[in-house]
């Protein structure tokens, strides 16, 4: 205990000892023990640190400790223009950077009163849905890998690679994309990118079915996650669970349907829900969501309208580079926007999208100048991790690995 007090901060230790301990277990191991899991642990998906209080191998207390990836992105947002911040949103949820780009520009557009053209909105929807598929593939793969089914990770990453290739054609970057711009997207989607997206969607369905077959027939996987980490619908809502995790508890809640943005109300898609609320349900739900997203992308590619991809508002929207080099008016606007920002009117807004992990929102306060006065990131992973102690208590240590994998936290987003 003395050694522990040196290593663990007394306040964290106190919180852990106060954590729920009304479990009485007749265990051969009488003494309790504190186990430090993470931040460097392969199964904690980044730098999540958990302090576990154990009775034998059973968990009777859990205190997550965040902040190992805290880079102060909210503070940085207050010190840079709205345009400059776009690349930084890539680093929030680094598994699906495109979705973060979309969330940020939608929030800024709402604040500044800009509306992107229809084609740009369709492209944004397409990249957001592809980002969801890419993110869920990592979630499924790493979840399966955490509980011992190693092959699946390679199979899902193979599919994800193809999405990264589409992004490569689209914007020249595979991982940190920064593709969206305020008032539109950086460049029109090339026919090659759209053709590749179509090809990807066509071959995705059978490949996903293969992955599913491989997991569903794996008895070890099923038995390790079935009935583990159960949370009721009421508790999930109370604790701020969001996204796929909430839908796996039986709550049919999806911002694409409940608070539509972009052109989601023109799309035909289902919102999959499961009622069990355990790790297995969360895995099944992600599979179903991949399929629904593929369906949406298919419709987008069919319906994609022609037209401009940037709003015609020269004082707010950055002009294309070739115009800057050849035209005087555009050069002036480029200079003004880069140096003084887009100056949205005084006011405050909150805009959220259904990111791949849940509700990803930005609360922005403008004082009328080029930089946001306040930017708050409402990150889904942060709120999902909050429910983690509730999920793990009463389970074994090996189940913690499965539960973390199933709620799919991304620390870049949780720590900001």
């Amino acid at each position, binding site marked *: 205990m003395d050694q522990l007090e040196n290593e663990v901060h007394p306040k964290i230790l106190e919180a852990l000892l106060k954590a729920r301990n009304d479990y009485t277990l007749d265990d051969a191991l009488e003494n309790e023990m504190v186990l430090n899991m993470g931040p460097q642990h392969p199964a904690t998906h980044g730098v999540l640190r958990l302090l576990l209080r154990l009775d034998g191998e059973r968990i009777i207390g859990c205190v997550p400790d965040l*902040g190992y990836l805290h880079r102060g992105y909210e503070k940085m947002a207050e010190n840079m223009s709205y345009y400059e911040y776009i690349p930084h949103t890539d680093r929030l949820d680094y598994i699906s950077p495109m979705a973060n780009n979309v969330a940020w520009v939608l929030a800024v557009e709402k604040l500044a009163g800009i509306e992107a053209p229809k084609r740009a909105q369709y492209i944004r929807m397409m990249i957001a849905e592809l980002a969801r598929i890419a993110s869920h593939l990592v979630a499924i793969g790493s979840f399966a890998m955490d509980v011992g089914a190693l092959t699946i990770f390679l199979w899902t990453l193979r599919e994800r690679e193809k999405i990264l290739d589409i992004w490569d054609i689209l914007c020249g970057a595979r991982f940190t994309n920064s593709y969206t711009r305020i008032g539109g997207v950086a460049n029109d989607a090339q026919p090659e990118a759209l053709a590749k997206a179509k090809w990807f969607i066509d071959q995705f369905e059978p490949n996903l079915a293969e992955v599913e077959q491989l997991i569903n027939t794996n008895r070890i996987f099923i038995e390790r996650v079935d009935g583990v980490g159960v949370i009721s619908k009421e508790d999930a809502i*109370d604790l701020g669970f969001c996204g796929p995790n909430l839908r796996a508890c039986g709550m049919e809640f999806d911002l694409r349907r409940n608070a539509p943005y972009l052109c989601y109300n023109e799309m035909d898609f289902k919102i999959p829900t499961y009622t069990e609320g355990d790790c297995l349900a969360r895995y099944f739900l992600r599979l179903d969501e991949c399929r629904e997203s593929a369906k949406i992308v298919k419709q987008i590619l069919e319906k994609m309208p022609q037209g401009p991809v940037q709003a015609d508002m020269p004082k707010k929207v950055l002009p294309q580079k070739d115009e800057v080099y050849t035209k005087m008016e555009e050069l002036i606007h480029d200079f003004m926007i880069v140096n003084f920002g887009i100056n949205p009117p005084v006011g405050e807004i909150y805009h959220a999208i259904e990111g791949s992990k849940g509700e990803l929102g930005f609360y922005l306060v403008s004082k009328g100048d080029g930089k946001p006065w306040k930017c708050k990131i409402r990150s889904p992973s942060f*709120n999902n991790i909050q429910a983690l102690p509730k999920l793990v208590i009463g389970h074994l240590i090996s189940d913690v690995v499965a539960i973390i994998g199933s709620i799919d936290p991304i620390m870049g987003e949780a720590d900001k």
Partner: protein
Amino acid sequence: MNLKTLIPQKLKEKFPSVDFEVLDYRDELTIKFDKKSIVEVCNFLKSESDLDFNWCSDITAVDWATRKNRFTVVYNIFSMKHNFRLRLKADVDETDCKIDSVTSVWGAANWQERETYDMYGIKFNNHPDLRRMYMPEEFEYYPLRKDFPLMGIPGSLPLPKK
């Protein structure tokens, strides 16, 4: 009836002594009131079956730097029944940097309030576990306050002991 008119009306009926300031900007409803009645109002908004704000999406604060009431605590709540988002605001002054915690109303407020405390130094009364969220416990400053420099304060974060 439209929720945008229903909510302020119901609140004014239920709490005649509280002064509600209603603002509708970019199709978002904001209600500002005194910090003393925050828990009662939140409880009412959650339990009233016509409103049913069952989901606390986010809690944060804004530092106005030069205003008389320096901070504003912002609650972002959502009603899943009506698909309606509401923003509650309460001013907190620097000399009395405290507000009652709403963890008794929504469990999700626990970490969200901790984060606000960590970043702005606003204390939440009756909070079950008010520790810092991201910064180390030894850290003396509140990073999102406007007087905290962007590059940090040299020496404020000591290296871990060997």
